[in-house]
Each structure stands twice: as C-alpha cells, then as structure tokens.
C-alpha cells in the first residue's frame, strides 16, 4: 500500500522527477507496455526514496544528496566520428588497444560503426543496442531486465531504470567459450554538461565462459553525470571475468551499479580499477543462487586532489557451499577520500559458506582519508567468514633500503606504491589486461614502466 508521502525534496531531487516527466514519451521503449511499466515503477520508487544521504547506512560516507546540487539534461547522441587516437586518449593507449571484440557506446548510443558486432555474432554472442531492444524487447530480455538480483531500496538504480537510454544487451550462448574478451567502451561526448544513463544486460548461459571488460573514459564533456548499471546473470557452470577500468574526467560524477547473480557451480571474477571522476560510487550487489559457486570481487583505486571513490559491496550467500573473496587496495593523495564498505550476508541454511574480505589504503598525504566498514550478517552456523582492513603511509624503512641501493627517493616511492597496488592487480589473470592496468598505475604515478 502506497501512502501519499509529503516530504521535502531538494532542487536536484525534484529535477530528476521533472527530467523524467519531460523525457518520458521520447525514451526508448515508450510505446512498449513492459518497458514503460518498468520505468513508471522505477520513477515511483525513486520518488519515495529520494537521493541517498549520509543517514542512509549504505551511503554513510557519500552524501549524494548534499553533493548533487544540479541535475544536467539528458545527453543527446549526435553520432559524431570518434578516431582511434581519441579512443586512446580517453582510455589510455594500452586499454584502448586490448585485443578484444569491441563494443563502443558513445553518449549512451551503441555505435555499430565502431563495434565488432559481426565478430561477436559468429562467436556465438548476441549483441544488440539496448535502446533498440527496448522498443520491442525479445523474450529473453523481458525475463532479465531489472530482474537480476533486483533491489527495491536503491534510488540510484531506480533512476537508472527510469531514465536508461542506451547500453547493450548481450547474450552469450550455451557452452560458448569466447577466445578473447568483449571490450565494452563507454564514452561521454563533448561540450556542455549532460547526464548519461546507460544499462547493460548480460546473460552468460550454461557452461559459457567469457571476459567482459568495461572501460569508461572521456572525450571531454564538462561536468558529466554518469549513471551506469550492468546486470549480469551467470548460468550454471559458466565462468565470467568482469573488469572495469574507469578514468572519467576529473569533474565527473560516476555512479555505477553492478547486479550479479550466479547459478550453480559458476565462477565470477571481478576487478574494478578507478583513477577518474570527481565522485565515484562503485556498488556491486551479488547473490549466490546456486550451490558450489565462487566469486572474487577485487579492485584498486588511485586518487588525488579532492577525488572521492566509494566502493560498496553486498554479497549474499543464499545457498550452501559458495566462496566469496574481496580484496581492494587504494592509494590516496592530496585531500582524496576512499571508502570501502563490504557486507556479507549468509542466509539461514547457507552452510559451508566461505567469505573473506580485505581492504587496504596507502595514504600519501596528511589530508587523505580512508574509511572502511566491513559488515558480516551470518545466520548459519557452519561458515568461515573474515575481514580485515589496513591504512597507513609508505614505510620509511622500506624506502631507505631502496634509496641505499641508489634508487632516487621519488622512484623508490613509486616502486613501493606500485608494489602495493600490484598485490591487488595480481587478481587479474589475463596477462595483457594486468599489464595494461600496471601501465595505468604507472601513468597515474607519472613514471615510466621498465
């Protein structure tokens, strides 16, 4: 029962409702009852929730309502040409040139001219523009969209469902083992401030195996407000590696939600690497829906100036015999702030659960800050769960040892920072990808790689 709730709304909170009202009839799928119904429900949920603020426990360290004062208009995709050089500039040359099936989304628009749709199709993967799919959703999408580990209490996600204009829908067929990663490149545009709402829906069917790399970069749009969501359903005995590399412009807001559901005996390895944006929220909701599966969600963030990066994970062990691992490493300089919140819920009956999480930060300045909050909610008795958190500065003893061998101080510091991040990067199995992330770390540090 929905009671009319009279509540105060900030200007930005109201602006999203206005944005929806204005855009509603022109959004993709406006004439499809399934899609328009989904959007109406989502905007209703948002209206009740409002923007999250610090008294909402999951947003304790990231007061979105206070920080988001202006809402930008929805982006208008103009189909402008994007050169290889611009891609390299936006993502970093090593990431841009990863050997992969490329899918390029610019201003929310899947660009067939820049994407390898034919290659994917012959490899057994159905890839379509979400905007197009929403106009007349295929059956599999109707059974998936907004239904993978769904959340009713998340306003950012609700806004995404209400206002999504693009992204991709990807179905990796039963037993399909991809020979190279799918690289989903998500760029902004150029020019005036805009909001981009994208959603990706990915289904990895039984026994399939794939690596999905999502990279985010900027072509130069000012004050981008990005809200990106990916739903990923991993079927029984399927294995998905999911890597995110985010280097949006340093004035951007980057709000990201991953919704992940694992079937039985499945495997999921995620890695999130962030150096960009002014405010980043990386939230991952993962649930184990089938027994005997394993998930690893790890990552690294390197921040400076007044950058803020919040990683919030919720892992739900709903069934027995699943394993989850989390390892996040942050390097914080200037007045940067890193946040790690990791929650593990073990349902009654989810026996033989094995869950561990670890977060660590290296503070390079007196004014950098790291907040870490682990939470375990365990309702089963035969489980192994643990967490740990560290935060500290560069060890002077280690530094002196390196300097005493002739390595100049700045280089010695860089080496120690790379070593710190390296412990997390080790989680990335794909060698080309791991090296590309190593390069990205070195870029951030301003050092060349040997």
């Amino acid at each position: 029962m929905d009671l009319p709730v009279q509540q105060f709304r900030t200007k930005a909170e109201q602006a999203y409702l206005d944005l929806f009202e204005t855009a509603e009839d022109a959004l993709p799928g406006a004439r499809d009852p399934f899609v328009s119904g989904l959007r109406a429900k989502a905007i209703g949920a948002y209206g009740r929730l409002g923007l999250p603020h610090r008294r909402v426990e999951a947003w304790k360290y990231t007061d979105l309502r206070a920080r988001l004062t202006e809402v930008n208009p929805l982006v208008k995709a103009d189909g402008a040409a994007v050169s290889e050089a611009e891609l390299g500039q936006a993502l970093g040359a090593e990431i841009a040139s990863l050997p992969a099936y490329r899918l390029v989304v610019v201003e929310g628009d899947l660009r067939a001219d820049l994407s390898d749709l034919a290659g994917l199709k012959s490899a057994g993967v159905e890839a379509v523009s979400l905007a197009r799919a929403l106009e007349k959703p295929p059956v599999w999408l109707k059974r998936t969209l907004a239904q993978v580990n769904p959340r009713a209490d998340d306003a950012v996600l609700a806004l995404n469902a209400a206002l999504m204009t693009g992204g991709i829908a990807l179905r990796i067929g039963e037993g399909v083992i991809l020979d190279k990663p799918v690289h989903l490149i998500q760029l902004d545009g150029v020019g005036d401030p805009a909001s981009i709402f994208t959603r990706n829906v990915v289904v990895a069917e039984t026994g399939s195996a794939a690596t999905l790399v999502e990279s985010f970069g900027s072509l130069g749009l000012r004050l981008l407000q990005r809200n990106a969501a990916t739903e990923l359903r991993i079927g029984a005995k399927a294995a998905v590696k999911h890597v995110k590399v985010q280097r949006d412009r340093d004035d951007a807001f980057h709000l990201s939600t991953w919704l992940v559901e694992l079937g039985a005996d499945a495997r999921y390895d995620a890695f999130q690497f962030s150096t960009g944006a002014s405010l980043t929220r990386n939230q991952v909701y993962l649930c184990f829906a089938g027994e005997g599966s394993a998930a690893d969600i790890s990552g690294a963030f390197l921040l400076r100036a007044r950058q803020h990066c919040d990683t919030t994970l919720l892992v739900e062990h709903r069934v027995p015999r699943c394993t989850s691992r989390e390892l996040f490493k942050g390097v914080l300089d200037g007045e940067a702030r890193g946040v790690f919140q990791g929650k593990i819920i073990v349902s009654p009956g989810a026996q033989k659960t094995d869950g561990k999480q670890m977060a660590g930060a290296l503070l390079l300045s007196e004014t950098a800050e790291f907040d870490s909050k682990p939470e375990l909610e365990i309702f089963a008795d035969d489980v192994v769960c643990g967490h740990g958190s560290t935060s500290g500065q560069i060890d002077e003893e280690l530094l002196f040892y390196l300097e005493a061998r002739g390595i100049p101080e700045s280089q010695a510091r860089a080496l120690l920072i790379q070593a710190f991040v390296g412990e997390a990067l080790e989680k990335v199995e794909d060698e080309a990808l791991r090296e590309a992330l190593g390069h990205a770390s070195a870029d951030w540090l301003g050092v060349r790689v040997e």
Partner: protein
Amino acid sequence: MLEIKNLHVNVDGREILNGLDLTLPQGEVHAIMGPNGSGKSTLAYVLAGKREYEVTAGSVTWKGEDLLAMEPSERAVAGVFLAFQYPIEIPGVATMTFLRTAVNALRKARGEAELSTPDFLRFVREKAQALKIEPEMLKRPLNVGFSGGEKKRNEILQMALLEPSLCVLDETDSGLDIDAMRIVAEGVNALRSPERAMLVITHYQRLLNYIVPDRVHVLSDGRVARSGGPEVALELEESGYTEFDGKAA
C-alpha cells in the same frame, strides 16, 4: 679514503656517537668491533644516510666528497654500500625487478648506458651462482620468506652487482651458521680490491677468521677506544668486552 672526524650523532635525542675519528684508506679492510650499544650500527646507518640519525658535529668524507651533504641514493652513486644487518622484506617487488632497477639507477646516475635484459640476466646469473643463490629465489618478492642465510647472501649479491667502492657490512655474520658464513665471507673476499675499501662491523671475532682485516677498531661509548692489527680481535676473543663496557672514554 674514508675520513671520519669528530663525529657526533644523536638518535631520538640521545647521543650515540660521541666524537668518533676513523680513517680507512682505499684497498684496506677495517673491522669495527665493540660491545652492544657502543654505536657500531649507528655508524653504519649514518654512513648510508638514514634520516632519523642527526649529525650534530663532525665530518665524513669519501674520496674527498662530503657524504653528509648527500641523499641516501646519492651516496650509493658515490660508491657507498651498506649490507644491512636486517635486510628489509618488500612484498610486491620481485627480487629481480629490484636488482635491475637498482643497477640501472646507478648506471644512469653515473652516466653509463642501462643494461639490456639479456646482459643483465647473464650478469646476475653469474654473480648469483658464485653465492649459491638459486635462480628461483630471484623470482620471489624481495627477501619475503627468505631464510636468514638467504637474506645475507642476497645482500652480498647486491654488493657484487652494484660494485661499490666503500662497503659497509653491518653484522653480516649475525644469524649465520658456519657454512653460510663461509659462503658470505668468500663472496666478500672476492670483492676485495685495491680500488675498494671495506668496513666490517661485527660483534664476534669469528667472522674475522674468514675476512682478515688490515686493522681493527674497538668502539666504546660512541668513539674509537682502541685501534690495532688483527691481533686486537684475537685478544678481545680472550678477554671479552668487559674492559670497554660502559667505560666513559
């Protein structure tokens, strides 16, 4: 020539070296002995440039250059090498990467071309073999999980690779059994040369049976209380440090 004149050093506000004078000519090996707390390790760290050690008076020059004015890495470029008593473990840095970074940093600072990968590997393999260091050990993170003996051998390997002109060995014998000590001592002796000076710091005479010094200095209360030939070490072995313990010189 290493010339230390009237060196006073404070650590945490406490004076540890108290007017130390020492002269070490190139081509010679001198031993520094002394009871615990006499300032042996402090001397080693001050030569290498550890920041917490505050020099309040005196001078240290190596080949006429003022060491005290240099950053730790600049001292290494000038030829100073400290073999640490407790080598540091650095997870996340492969030993080989570290060795290569150090060798090339020094070569670059000295205006020499960096070594190519195959040349470097050949260079390391040859030196490592002489010290009975397995190639597998070099793939591991620096000193992580190394035994005491492996850590000390790794120090000598670095010394062999960096080819310093002033070697300071801080209690390199501590924690070593007799076989490990022999390997380490052979490694050190192989580096003795007319171009190179060595300062061997040790608490026990034992190491000096293998690395025979030209001169022995005994520290007490932060200064040199006695200097002489190798026989001084043998006398100390007989009489112990009682004579030097806590006695204000």
